[in-house]
């Protein structure tokens, strides 16, 4: 209880004073996670929809693998990206390790399977309803995929939000490939981990509350926007 009220105090103090360092951390967190989720959506939405519509040998296996990838441990993704981007790794020459770009790459890899797997389920349900009509109208498979993505847009927002939730909350991948370097790669979750390990529990909890509030605001805004659009277009 004591810790919680102290945390609340710390959070309020952080927000009221609008600490420069804190602002930097918040903006980097948002930049990394939102960029990663945007890329994950660009990759995951078409792949998920294609997997729902196209019929080819090995499709079921792919669906199972994709669903399993939703549970990919962030640390493992971080480790793989670390190995690839490290100086001795295949993409070492790019010198991206311990940069925000490396963090974006890791979080994209982490969230794209989530977006793709949820998209596959949503679009497949829609396809059972639409298939005969679209085939009757003469829609090609690729045209059907875009039509289904557009018609499923209100449900697919949830898939993308699930990806964002994963990106904003994970610490393992960004810690490994970013390194939690102050003013360079420190984000909310790595800062929380650091403050916790230093014993600053109240500050850590305060940061956590800010992170939670940000997530609430983003989800709330998306929900309201989606609701308005849904009311307009059915």
């Amino acid at each position, binding site marked *: 209880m004591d810790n919680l009220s102290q945390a609340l105090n710390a959070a309020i103090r952080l927000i009221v004073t609008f600490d420069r360092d804190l602002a930097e951390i918040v903006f980097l967190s948002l930049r990394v996670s939102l960029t990663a989720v945007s890329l994950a959506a660009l990759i995951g939405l078409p792949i998920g929809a294609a997997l729902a519509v196209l019929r080819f040998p090995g499709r079921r296996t792919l669906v199972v693998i994709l669903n399993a990838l939703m549970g990919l441990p962030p640390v493992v993704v971080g480790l793989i990206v670390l190995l690839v981007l490290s100086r001795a790794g295949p993409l070492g020459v790019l010198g991206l390790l311990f940069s925000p770009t490396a963090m974006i790459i890791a979080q994209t890899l982490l969230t794209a399977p989530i977006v793709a797997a949820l998209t596959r389920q949503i679009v497949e349900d829609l396809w059972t309803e639409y298939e005969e009509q679209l085939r009757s109208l003469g829609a090609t498979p690729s045209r059907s995929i875009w*039509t289904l993505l557009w018609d499923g847009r209100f449900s697919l927002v949830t898939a993308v939000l699930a990806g964002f939730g994963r990106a904003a909350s994970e610490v393992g991948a960004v810690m490994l490939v970013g390194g939690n370097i102050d003013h360079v790669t420190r984000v909310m979750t790595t800062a929380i981990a650091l403050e916790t390990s230093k014993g600053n529990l109240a500050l850590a909890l305060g940061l956590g509350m800010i992170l939670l509030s940000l997530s609430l605001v983003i989800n709330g805004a998306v929900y309201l926007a989606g609701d308005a659009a849904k009311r307009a277009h059915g």
Partner: protein
Amino acid sequence: MESILPLSVENLVYRAGGSNLVDGISFKLETGLRTILLGPNGAGKSLTLRMCHGLLQPTSGTVSWHGRNASNEVLREQAMVFQRPVLLRRSVIGNITYALALRGIRRSHRTNRAVEALTRTGLGAMAQRAARRLSAGEQQRLALARAWALTPQILFLDEPTANLDPAATRQVEDIINAMHITGTKIVMTTHDIAQARRLADEVLFLHRGQLLEKSTAEHFLNEPSSEEARAFLKGELLW
């Protein structure tokens, strides 16, 4: 495009779950007549319709159009309206221009054709409404407007009024007749004898996957030749 009719069906079989749901049906449909596939539920009407339209692959047998196999060119001359209309989450007019775009109609022509189809089906004032927000009857009329805008040579309808009240049914039947008058071949399934009486020029009576009768509506409705058809017309329960 030259005529794709007559539609010839030879020995059509659809097998599923160990039994022949459509069991060796053959017929030939000429242009001009409104053809009703009549029969109780499970007779194989919808399956037959879907195989004709190319949505289902028959287990065996052939569907041919003026002696040719189905192709994209032949499909372009067909349209189908389903029991539950499948409308896209777009505006009313957007649903029609989408279908026209799939047929490769030039963008500048789409809106005019769509508005014309909406006007003919009494939906002109609703063009900008969300299609999914329409009533059931309006949705089915929109499905018909979409089909009409494609100016098909043949229109398949699968129990299009099964979910509608009498007033909406009347409107849908009026549109079907209007399309018939403008030269579209009508092929429709129903289990409703009164509807067959109102719309049919020609009746194909199906029962348990077999075509028991094919004759003019007048002949079938007044003096059916099969025992099953007599029972069906008397309102006895067939299965």
